[in-house]
């Protein structure tokens, strides 16, 4: 009987313990992210209180959208040919010491090679916040837009006076060539694809071709006519000579 009364309590205590543990976990995981969210990638920097020893903060927008939303090729910003994107940099740096941002740059890399880079000077705004500033780049592919298509990585960076990177954030852009699918590289790739598929199909046909075109089973060898002494004369077939008909045939 006692066991019957204890078992619901024993069932209730682990439930309460699990609930308390879940609450602690939620608080432990949620609190740092709640504090970190306004710090990282925030562009509305004027709303944040300016502490003297505040850490360096920066953010970039692409036509008004934070670039952290384009962190993968599938969520990349679409850039049509001839379009210019307005890339806005905002930052707050510590007043006492720390990096002094002088330039903002936007770099396009492909296969590890920098294809295009744009650098613009940063403008400090002493009247709003000490150590705050902004920069703006109207960015496009330039002359590369004729041949470039697909997903590319852009890196937004803030540079100090020595040219070293103070802060950077990569994001992705999906570029569209003027004729979209008819872009030259895509056409070459599609032709190569079809060609290689044909070669593979031919190799498969060769690999299994022996089964279809298998040689017939060996039969009796064909009769070999005896060698005639006079090469120029036409010898009548042996059937005709055995039948006794004249070589010229019945007239």
């Amino acid at each position, binding site marked *: 009987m006692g066991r019957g009364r204890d078992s619901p309590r024993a069932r209730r205590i682990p439930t309460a313990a699990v609930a308390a543990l879940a609450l602690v976990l939620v608080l432990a995981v949620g609190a740092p992210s709640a504090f970190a969210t306004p710090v990282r990638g925030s562009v509305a920097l004027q709303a944040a209180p300016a502490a003297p020893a505040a850490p360096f903060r920066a953010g970039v927008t692409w036509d008004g959208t934070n670039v952290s939303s384009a962190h993968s090729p599938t969520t990349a910003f679409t850039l049509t040919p001839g379009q210019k994107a307005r890339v806005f940099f905002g930052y707050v740096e510590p007043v006492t010491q720390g990096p002094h941002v002088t330039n903002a740059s936007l770099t396009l890399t492909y296969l590890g090679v920098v294809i295009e880079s744009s650098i613009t000077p940063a403008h400090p705004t002493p009247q709003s916040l000490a150590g705050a500033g902004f920069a703006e780049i109207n960015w496009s592919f330039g002359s590369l837009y004729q041949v470039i298509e697909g997903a590319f990585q852009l890196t937004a960076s803030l540079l100090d006076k020595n040219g070293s990177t103070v802060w950077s954030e990569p994001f992705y852009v999906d570029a569209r060539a003027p004729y979209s699918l008819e872009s030259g590289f895509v056409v070459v790739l599609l032709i190569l694809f079809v060609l*290689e598929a044909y070669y593979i199909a031919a190799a498969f046909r060769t690999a299994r071709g022996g089964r279809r075109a298998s040689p017939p089973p060996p039969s009796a060898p064909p009769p070999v006519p005896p060698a005639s002494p006079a090469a120029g004369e036409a010898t009548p077939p042996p059937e005709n000579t055995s039948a006794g008909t004249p070589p010229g045939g019945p007239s």
Partner: protein
Amino acid sequence: MSAASSASASGVVLGLVVVFLLQQFGYIALSSVLTSVLYLAIGAIVGGALFGGIAVGLSHRRTTSEAPSSSQQGPARP
């Protein structure tokens, strides 16, 4: 050149082409060297192994299906 090696070589090229096509259609980005080499190596290895293996399997099937038919033909004639 055997059919298997031919299919494997074409499969390597096809794997590389597929990786570049995926980049062109916006599914992957070949930005850094490490990522690019990784994607291209995976495409080449998978393409070569897949189509080379299929060709080897097809030729193996042919030889195994030919073996009983040749044994049914009796002793070889001089």
